């Protein structure tokens, strides 16, 4: 663990020298935190790029001097890689779009209208956000089995939609709250219908919020493993990337280069989104208080 973090300095020392003395300590701590955070990611990338001979040695090479793309080729040529990639993408995009449309309507009702039951509805959304999904696998499995929905991608889409929906509502509601209602009213005065005012005035202003929430939803659905693993059983062609990744590792148990290349291919979209949206990631979610 990160044991090298700075301990509070003992009391009593005069202030200025203490502060100056602690600067190197701080930098050292920062380096330790940075290395701890990034090393596993780096190790995945670098293993994927190393020639097989450099991977299984008694002395791991921390910096890959010779590179190869062989492992990526192995991973991509593996059975069904593109199929599972497509499955994951369809599932995720379907769930996110569905959640966006449904959440936009609900967020608008909550942020812009007063009605009886509004508080109770919001309470339900907050509760759903914390839903114990890990504990509902068995009932959902049985329900889906009874209705012949097992082994089907659309059924999985529905679960992912529900997992991402509450978070999307909460964040969109916060974004809507920052758009002054006067803008909308002005448009209506100018002869727009309520829907027209929404489409022409609010929607463009909401674009960043929609982007941020859909990317969060994308990551949640892209990464989901438990439901994909237990609801897709017989129809192996309907598997998703995370499930494929774990089975890939079992099949090619000794080929760590290919396994790390497969992990890299799977992780890249999520990593890119997080890095590109660093600012939104670090500020936007605080209001919605949900991890990706």
């Amino acid at each position, binding site marked *: 663990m990160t044991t090298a973090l700075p301990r*509070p300095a003992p009391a009593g020392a005069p202030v200025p020298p203490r502060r100056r003395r602690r600067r190197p300590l701080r930098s050292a701590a920062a380096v330790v935190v940075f290395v701890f955070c990034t090393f596993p990611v780096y190790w995945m990338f670098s293993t994927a790029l190393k020639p097989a001979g450099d991977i299984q040695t008694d002395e791991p090479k921390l910096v890959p001097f010779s590179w190869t793309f062989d492992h990526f080729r192995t991973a991509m040529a593996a059975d069904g890689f593109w199929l599972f990639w497509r499955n994951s993408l369809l599932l995720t995009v379907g769930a996110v779009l569905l959640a966006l449309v*449904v959440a936009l309507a609900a967020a608008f009702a909550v942020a812009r*209208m007063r009605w009886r039951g509004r508080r109770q509805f919001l*309470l339900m959304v907050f509760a759903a956000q914390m839903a*114990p999904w890990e504990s509902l696998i068995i009932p*959902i499995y049985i329900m889906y089995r009874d209705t012949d929905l097992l082994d089907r991608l659309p059924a999985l889409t529905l679960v992912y*939609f529900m997992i991402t929906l509450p978070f999307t509502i909460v964040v969109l509601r916060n974004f809507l709250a920052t758009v002054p209602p006067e803008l909308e009213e002005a448009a209506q005065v100018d002869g727009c219908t309520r829907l027209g005012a929404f489409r022409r005035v609010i929607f463009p202003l909401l674009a960043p919020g929609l982007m941020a929430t859909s990317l969060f939803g994308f990551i949640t659905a892209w*990464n989901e493993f438990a439901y994909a693993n237990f609801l897709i059983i017989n129809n192996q062609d309907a598997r998703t990337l*995370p499930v494929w990744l774990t089975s890939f590792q079992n099949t090619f148990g000794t080929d760590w280069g290919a396994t790390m290349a497969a992990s890299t291919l799977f992780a890249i979209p999520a990593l890119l989104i997080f*890095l590109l949206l660093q600012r939104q990631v670090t500020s936007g979610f605080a209001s919605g208080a949900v991890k990706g």
Partner: protein
Amino acid sequence: MSVIGQRPRPAAKTGGAPPARGDEPAPRRRARGSGWWPYLLIAPTVLGTAALLLVPLLRGLLISVQDFKLRELVNGDAKFVGLDNYGTLLGDPRFWEVVRRTFLFMAVNVVLIVGVGTLVALLIERLGRFGRTAVLSGLVLAWGMPVVAATTVFQWMFHSEYGVVNWALTSLGFDSFDRYAWFANGTAAFAIVVFLVVWQSVPFAAITLYAGLTTVPRELHEAARLDGASAFQTFRTITFPMLRPLFMLVICLEVIWTFRAFVQIWVITQGGPGDATTILPVYAVQTALSAQRYDLGTAASMITVLLMSSVLVIYFRQLYRQEAEL
């Protein structure tokens, strides 16, 4: 969700809460918003929640009071057995062992996550521009790493023969780690799962707490320093009390998210070796799908839900203090 049924507490009652926000401006558009529009707009959300959250929950409750094994799964017509399944579970020492381990797992994780997260947040606040950007990027990178990908990487890093961790430990002189099989030893496997969960969760805690730290007025810290307070005293008497609600939120969320460690455990060890990494959600799935005791597994899930909703109650009380205009 026992919480849904409760009537929300009036937000105004939060006497000791931080800065009182003025009352909500009178809703000007009360007249316009009424009608059936809002109900139409929330209908899909309500339907979705009912169908995919409420119904499974009720179905789970139902199964947990039935005799539901493989035969009943195939033929239907399950008999009601009252609380027998719960009785069986509560009378099973293995179940209690799992409950004890779940709490231990939760406690260790949450203490480490919040502790390390706080230290990292304090560190980020004190860093210069460059260091801050670098550490924040590192945190975001760890945070964005998909759970399954991170899990495979940890398996590789802790590989007994070619793992980089064993190599590093051996090079540092800990010769006992030469070809040490981490996943064969219960305590070691447990430690790795904890390490993995902490590694994935610290970014959220650290960044959230750092965002909170930036809202603490600098003058307060300077005043404390002039009065001769140590860094620790300043934190204990100024920073922590001001951020107490935020700490409570982070702790509640991390407790609930600890159950999401299901995936990491399932992929790495499936609860093994022996039972060393079996926590409640893993136990439930093992019992239901491997042993085909759907009734017992579901009963264990319902107990999990009950435990989690008690955390939820605390979470909601905290949320009320934060969200004035809920």
